[in-house]
């Protein structure tokens, strides 16, 4: 099976080359048989990549250490689940995984849109085959997962224990699913640019796939945050590491696209901008992969000794060059007779939203690459870390939060004063009440207070939208509250799914602001000694050391400390933190020792204990953190995922045609009343 897998990878390489060539040839010569052959070539490429993947999985699961990739990433003592996930934990395997997902997506996208988009499909097929060709070629020539060793090691090196975590098993595939999905809108955008068919035909396809991108990137990013929090032991979940930033960049541009596409659907505006955002999202996904794999920027996550960096750089610049050329030569076809009645309208709010999202993306990108720029310009090696990113992005993020509340409430075309008053009064009052409550509670951090005011405001807008829609349904259809809610959401999933996502965003912002009140202390405790401290809410905590214990397990040595925790005199249980030294089959140390933080989670705060070291056998060096509201990061992320699923869920029946983007509107008719949709 391993040999079949290896052979299949080479066949996939040839088939991708064939598919690309005949698709482009068929499209330009308008020869249907070539176009059909290109599509079939794409399907066969996918089938071959599936076989190659099966071959690698077979090598991993049978622990065939004669395969270099297997020997480098698993060991005989590793649990099977992580042996399975080792497929994507290294350079070569993850490239094959990219190709596997891309093959699957391409097959689905082309098979489902072939009949509807006959003009675009050949070019899209060719583009997807070209991207596939690049990934398969990189896997074949620069990082082949089937490379054999000329000897059989006794055991494999195993996987870094910090990567043996459920979050890390799921985080990379979700990110890949998100990254790779950017290729489909990109391919259709390139197809639309080639054919100069930049009307609504490609819009439907790209919106669906942009949602897929957004959905999986959201899950991947949140899972990565969770992994960093529970596994790395530094008490935080986002460090503005270059690789974290790389996943955030396409998320930002895709989010911008999902908002701006509504303006194109409604008003036929922003054609150029939407094409740019689609292309940019794909290029940023490639850029992110390049950052992860090239080692040009220091990162906690980088793959070491990577030979694929120059290939990715070349592919990135070629794709960028072709995209720029196509957009530049088709500019006049992207012209739309844009009109805007007022700067106080939903269209304008979405444009401000795009400006801020792209502004944040630029700031993040600039901060990420600035160490290279600085080294190139002044030969000075510098680091750009959280102080920079927080300073630059917090104001922009708060403005974005404000727009999250403003956008959905403001009327299309032009908002009247009465519209503004009616829509914004209650949420604004609610936001101010929240702010006053925070000030009364003694909160003095400027950004945190502003953030909570805005969180209150946005929450008010969301609740108001649901309340009005449900009231209207109840009034018209005499439905129960639950039925009104279910049908309100079910009959307009895009709108109300979007509000659910916004609710998740509010939770995330509230949790981020909570970290401004984080408290951390270093303490040394002998067995039986106690340490008292106050948490951010003013409660007194007492920690009593239960002593340091050591244990030898088959695959690791463990040093652990237990702290008995009391809050205001009430016993809450024991929090345990560990240091683990993983061992190979000969009980030799593998990797650096890893940390298992002791975490006690509640809705108000996490108590986070890290065993930093042991002195004199029974003195534990500890760091104790009070991290307010961290749980809401995970709840918010989960809510965003639910909202994304609601938005993506296909409508069962569509009685009204999608017509907004071609609507011709009388400028004299000013729509000032808002209608909760889908009722």
């Amino acid at each position, binding site marked *: 099976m391993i040999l079949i897998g*290896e*052979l299949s990878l*080479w066949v996939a390489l040839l088939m991708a080359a064939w598919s690309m060539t005949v698709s482009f040839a068929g499209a330009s010569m308008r020869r249907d048989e070539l176009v059909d052959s290109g599509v079939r070539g794409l399907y066969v490429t996918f089938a071959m990549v599936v076989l190659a993947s099966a071959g690698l999985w077979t090598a991993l699961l049978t622990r065939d250490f004669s395969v*270099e990739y297997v*020997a*480098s*990433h698993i060991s005989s003592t590793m649990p099977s689940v992580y042996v399975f996930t080792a497929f994507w934990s290294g*350079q*070569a395997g993850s490239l094959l995984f990219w190709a596997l997902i891309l093959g699957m997506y391409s097959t689905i996208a082309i098979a489902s849109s072939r009949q509807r988009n006959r003009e675009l499909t050949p070019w899209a097929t060719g583009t997807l085959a070209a991207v596939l060709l690049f990934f398969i070629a990189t896997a*074949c020539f620069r990082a082949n997962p089937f490379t054999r060793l000329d000897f059989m*090691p006794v055991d494999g090196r195993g996987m870094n224990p910090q990567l043996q975590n459920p979050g890390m098993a799921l985080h990379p595939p979700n990110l890949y699913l998100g990254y790779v999905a950017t290729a489909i809108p990109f391919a259709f955008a390139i197809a639309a640019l080639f054919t100069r068919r930049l009307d609504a035909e490609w819009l439907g396809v790209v919106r669906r796939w942009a949602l897929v991108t957004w959905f999986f990137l959201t899950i991947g990013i949140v899972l990565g945050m969770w992994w960093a929090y529970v596994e790395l*032991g530094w*008490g935080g979940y986002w*460090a503005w590491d270059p690789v974290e930033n790389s996943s955030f960049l396409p998320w930002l541009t895709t989010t911008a696209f999902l908002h701006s596409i509504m303006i194109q659907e*409604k008003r036929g505006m922003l054609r150029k901008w939407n094409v740019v955002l689609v292309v940019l999202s794909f290029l940023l996904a490639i850029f992110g992969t390049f950052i992860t794999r090239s080692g040009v920027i220091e*990162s*906690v996550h980088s793959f*070491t*000794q990577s030979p694929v960096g120059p290939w990715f750089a070349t592919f990135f610049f070629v794709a960028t060059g072709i995209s720029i050329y196509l957009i530049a030569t088709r500019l006049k076809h992207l012209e739309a007779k844009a009109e*805007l*009645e007022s*700067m106080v309208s939903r269209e304008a709010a979405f444009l401000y939203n795009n*400006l801020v999202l792209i502004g944040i993306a*630029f700031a993040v990108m600039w901060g990420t690459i*600035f160490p290279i720029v*600085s080294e190139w310009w002044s030969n000075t*090696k*510098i*680091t*750009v*870390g*959280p*102080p920079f990113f927080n*300073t*630059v992005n917090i104001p922009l993020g708060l403005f974005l939060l404000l727009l999250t509340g403003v956008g959905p409430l403001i*009327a299309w075309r032009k908002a009247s004063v009465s519209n503004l008053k009616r829509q914004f009064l209650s949420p604004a009052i609610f936001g101010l009440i929240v702010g006053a409550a925070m000030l009364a509670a003694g909160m003095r951090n400027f950004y945190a207070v502003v953030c909570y005011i805005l969180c209150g405001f946005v929450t008010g807008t969301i609740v108001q939208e649901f309340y009005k829609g449900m*009231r209207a*349904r109840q*009034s*018209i259809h005499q439905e129960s509250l639950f039925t009104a809610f279910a049908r309100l959401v079910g009959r*307009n999933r895009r709108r109300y799914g979007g509000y659910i996502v916004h609710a998740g965003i509010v939770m995330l912002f509230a949790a981020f602001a909570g970290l401004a009140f984080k408290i951390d202390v270093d303490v040394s405790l002998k067995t039986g000694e106690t340490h008292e401290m106050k948490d951010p809410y003013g409660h007194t905590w007492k920690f009593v050391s239960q002593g340091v214990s050591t244990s030898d397990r088959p695959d690791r040595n463990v040093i652990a400390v237990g702290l008995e925790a009391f809050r205001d005199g009430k016993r809450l249980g024991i929090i345990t933190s560990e240091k683990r030294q993983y061992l190979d089959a000969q009980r030799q140390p593998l*990797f*650096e020792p890893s940390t298992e933080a002791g975490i006690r989670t509640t809705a108000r705060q996490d108590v986070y204990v890290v065993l*930093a*070291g042991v002195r004199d056998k029974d003195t534990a060096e500890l760091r104790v953190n009070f991290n307010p509201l961290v749980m809401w990061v995970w709840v918010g992320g989960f809510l965003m995922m639910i909202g994304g699923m609601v938005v993506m869920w296909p409508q069962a029946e*569509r*009685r*009204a045609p999608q017509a*907004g*983007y071609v*609507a011709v*509107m*009388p*400028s*004299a*008719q000013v729509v000032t009343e808002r*209608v909760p*949709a*889908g*009722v």
Partner: protein
Amino acid sequence: MISRREFVARATTGSAALLVMSHTSRAQQARGMVHDSTIVKDSSNLFAMDQGAALPVRLPPKPDAKPSMTPRERDDLEHHIHCQCGCTLDIFTCRTTDFSCQVSPAMHRDVVALVEGGYSAQEIIDAFTNVYGERALMAPRKSGFQLLAWVLPGFAVIVGGSALAMLLKRWGTRSRDRAARSTTGAQFSATRGHTDATAEELAELEAAVRRDDDK
């Protein structure tokens, strides 16, 4: 033109040939290779530490020196100094995260000594940059070329905002011109593209919302 079957057959043969060539080439490369059971290539390490990266950052204590800041302020200061072990973290985060790093505790001891020697936060940061260079900082300086790091994002947002404002103004002018020419056209529905509801339902709903708002 070749048939599909022929093509697949040739592709398979070609692949097999490529495979054989690739194996031959790898076998040649492997000749003379030292056998070692430790496989290190292509591993996704979290980071490779350089435990010898700590350099002494020492200054004589100021006369009658008292600690220049509280432990909490010192911890905050450590968030602005980059650990040199090869990670991407600051001293405080690195030293309190992983006890296998010997660089951040050494740098921490230097910070403590400087604080107890009466040096201010800026003087301590300067002392570290004198020894390690700019890479001792967690953010670019706000002077010289590095000022560009801070200025450019704001500048880009301002330029983008100005361009957007001009665009909106142009679109507004176009809209007013058209309004002057014609007052007829298709009725715009703010919800048509996003809904399954019928026009009758929407009209009924609009009336209900208005009734609700008027209450």
